[in-house]
């Protein structure tokens, strides 16, 4: 007779081994979950933190849309573009920071040209799936003359929260609301002429 599930013989010595194995697996799973939670929250503000970002605009003497490493150490925020001299911003000079998200088409100009050249509107179908979500980190800070600067960085989804937590842990004030430009409807305000 073919049976899919054979009744387990509880009297065998093997059952104790199974139970132990199950308990060990459960303990391992719960332990790894706790480990993941601890990495998400910044533990120590003195430890350096770095992540890969794209500088969209704002930093002096830095090209737009250039990739680099954003690192936080002690009281300095440092952006190091690939193969270029870096830019430092003192944490005390940061006025405000906010987090937002953007959805962008991937592939750049080559992908755009390819989609435009594709017959029967196939490029549009590709566009439906060829987009990626990013986090944007916006900083406002003052220079040595007191002039207000703004800088915008693009990060992988989920990284923005980590960077913000790191900066907030180091005393930078964060704006209460997050940037949500895509979720709002058309806003229009008419002001009277002065």
């Amino acid at each position, binding site marked *: 007779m073919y049976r899919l599930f054979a009744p387990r013989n509880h009297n065998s010595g093997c059952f104790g081994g199974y139970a132990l194995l199950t308990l060990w697996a459960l303990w391992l799973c719960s332990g790894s979950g706790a480990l993941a939670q601890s990495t998400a929250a910044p533990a120590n503000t003195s430890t350096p933190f770095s992540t890969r970002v794209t500088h969209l*605009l704002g930093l002096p003497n830095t090209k737009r849309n250039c990739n680099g490493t954003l690192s936080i150490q002690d009281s300095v925020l440092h952006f190091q573009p690939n193969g270029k001299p870096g830019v430092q911003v003192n944490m005390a000079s940061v006025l405000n920071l906010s987090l937002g998200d*953007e959805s962008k*088409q991937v592939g750049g100009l080559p992908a*755009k040209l390819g989609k435009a050249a594709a017959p029967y509107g196939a490029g549009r179908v590709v*566009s*439906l799936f060829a987009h990626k979500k990013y986090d944007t980190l916006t900083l406002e800070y003052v220079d040595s*003359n007191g002039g207000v600067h703004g800088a915008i960085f693009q990060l992988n989804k989920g990284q923005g929260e980590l960077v913000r937590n790191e900066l907030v842990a180091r005393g930078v004030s964060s704006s209460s609301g997050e940037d949500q430009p895509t979720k709002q409807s*058309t806003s229009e305000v008419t*002001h009277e002429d002065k």
Partner: protein
Amino acid sequence: MDLLCGGLRHDCHCIFGSAGWCTQWSVQVERIDPGRVDLAHSFQVAIYENLLEELDKTKRFEYVLREGDSKASEIPDLLTLKTMVVKYTPGSETRRAVTTVSGATKLTVRSQLVTREGRIVMERTVNGNVRFFGSNLRATHNLARNIAKAIKQSNVAIVRASYRDTQPQTLNADGTQ
């Protein structure tokens, strides 16, 4: 005739010519006032930074200063550029790529050039859109470029402070009183 000139060089072609009645102003850009429009912080910062860059490119101003810059107090002929967001329509790059006709990001702002005395020298409502290619932040670049273009093309007579004090006047963007 180009009325908005750098008269300190005395090689301009403005109505005051080499008589020295005109002077080159500096401009201080204020941060963007979102008004009652719920504009993302990144957009406000992007407009501000793009404005500084585009105004610098026009070469119309001796100095282009940021808000809060301490050098502003030392500059005699200083205009302040105030920008208030009037309308904002959020768009989507994916919708633009898929449909072509929808998903445009549109920005409308009111820009004012104001003297130290609070006199409005120029006031314009300017649009900045991104309709086909580019990310949503591209709208801020287009907007800043249009504001700089409006300032460049405006027939605002920029006169020296002493002349301005004796002949108080407020000029519209088209040069009429």
